[in-house]
């Protein structure tokens, strides 16, 4: 026993700070967030469901919940499609590949908050989209893109697409490069055309990369915060901005904690469920 301690004391001392830190500043806050969410705002009774009941009575919260789910579902699908498309282009295009690659990956080096600024210029009421549509003769009166209807939803999707597609592109490029040339050649020899080579060879071999892209993107998409806060504010709330405004504008940490806790549960269930389905499907194929 003594020898064991002598041997591993150094290692223990080296690891401890990291885990203590994460315990103190991630573990404890999470616990305290959950406890807050189950504490009655008035009587301070614990445990109580009142915060959650109050949340579901709030129209704004239900809207935020649906917006988050829709944004994640539609957004992640679009981003994966776009990222795959761009990666395929980079894989095929010979002329000027480095230039194209550098340009399409630039959004990685642009802070999200700045993405918000740029899309405000594009979709503000005196923005450039309105002006372009006016000059093309499509519009006479400017459209208010950010008032919270389906168009606002579209603007958010476009802004997110701009910012995060490069991440998917990187994942897909790595996936494409791992596909052996010989597999595609063999398919070509057997008479497969371009489309069926893509559908029956490339796409199945890209499955691990696709799974990874969906998981990585979905985790972040559920937590979307800066873009809706900047572009749409309360016109189009999501769970993140809703939780923030409950705390900041209404000084109600209890409902804010409940909304944040629900967001955590949604992320865990969403990612866990997706991975479970993918593993099961993989087993069926194998």
């Amino acid at each position: 026993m003594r020898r064991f301690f002598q041997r591993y004391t150094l290692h223990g001392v080296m690891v401890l700070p990291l885990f203590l830190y994460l315990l103190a500043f991630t573990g404890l806050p999470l616990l305290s967030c959950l406890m807050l969410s189950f504490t009655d705002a008035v009587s301070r009774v614990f445990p109580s469901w009142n915060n959650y009941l109050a949340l579901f009575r709030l129209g704004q919260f239900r809207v935020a919940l649906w917006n988050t789910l829709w944004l994640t579902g539609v957004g992640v699908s679009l981003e994966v499609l776009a990222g795959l498309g761009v990666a395929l282009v980079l894989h095929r295009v010979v002329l000027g590949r480095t230039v194209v690659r550098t340009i399409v990956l630039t959004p990685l080096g642009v802070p999200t908050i700045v993405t918000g600024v740029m899309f405000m210029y594009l979709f503000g009421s005196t923005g450039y989209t309105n002006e372009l549509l006016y000059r093309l003769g499509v519009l006479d009166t400017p459209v208010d893109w950010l008032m919270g209807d389906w168009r606002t939803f579209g603007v958010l999707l476009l802004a997110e697409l701009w910012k995060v597609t490069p991440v998917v592109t990187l994942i897909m490029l790595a996936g494409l490069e791992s596909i052996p040339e010989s597999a595609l050649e063999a398919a070509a020899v057997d008479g497969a055309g371009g489309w069926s080579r893509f559908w029956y060879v490339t796409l199945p071999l890209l499955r691990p990369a696709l799974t990874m892209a969906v998981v990585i993107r979905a985790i972040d998409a559920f937590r979307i915060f800066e873009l809706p806060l900047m572009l749409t504010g309360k016109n189009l709330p999501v769970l993140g901005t809703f939780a923030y405004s409950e705390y900041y504008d209404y000084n109600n940490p209890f409902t804010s904690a409940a909304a944040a806790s629900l967001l955590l549960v949604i992320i865990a269930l969403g990612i866990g469920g997706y991975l479970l389905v993918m593993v099961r499907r993989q087993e069926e194929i194998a």
Partner: protein
Amino acid sequence: MTARELWWYGGGLLAVVYTLVPLYLLFKISVSPPTEALTPHPSFGLHTLTGEHWRLLLTSGTLWPPLGKSVAVALWTMLGAVGIATPAAYVLARLPQTWKYGCILALFASRMVPEVGIALPVAVQFLRWGLVDTQLGLVLAHLVKVLPLVAWILVGTFETIPVELEEAAQVDGCHRLAVLRRVVFPLAAPGVAVAALFAWLESWNEFTYALYLSLTENTLPLQTYYYVTRGSWFDAATYAIFLTVPVLVVTAGLQRYLKAGYLAGAVKG
């Protein structure tokens, strides 16, 4: 050129244009007079250029306090993250496979947690402790986000250093601490540098924790957001560019190391 190739080039062109147009507009607004940008019919080209917004950025005095705070917080976060995560990552890298993957998974999971859930209790607690609006408070919060990432990158670095090297040094009579200091850490230095740059970037960009933990002392991203909420297009543009340029430079330098995994939790809307 065949029809199919044309489609590929067309797709590439679309992606390039979609990426560049917002960036161009940001630049254009930062050098346009109000008569060209904040009107019902803004112009698309660069007609009259003005350096007025840039002059205002540098001389109005609103830039320096947030810049100072951002720089200091990012530096301390970087140092803190490297100091805490480097030794830990070394040990994790030397653990048996299953333990190692368990720990990495735990680190990854801690990056999946919604910030609004952590920032809320942290903000409530820091208000009591008087840590709101301080650099220390924000560094402590940024470490929550940065530590798992840095540890993760460094585990990968230490894995590439063969154990045999350490054993050889020990056979030659080197003490265990001296092995770390003279053999392992020098070999890991490039990886540590990359991890440090990622840490700096994450802290410089960070918005959510800063929003919860600042009342009067803004960071640069908060200052940009402040101008957006006030509707000052030109200030927002100059601040946004000022915020972006260092990020672009560092990201370009890191391009070789940009693995999609590292970006999980870092690139979100």
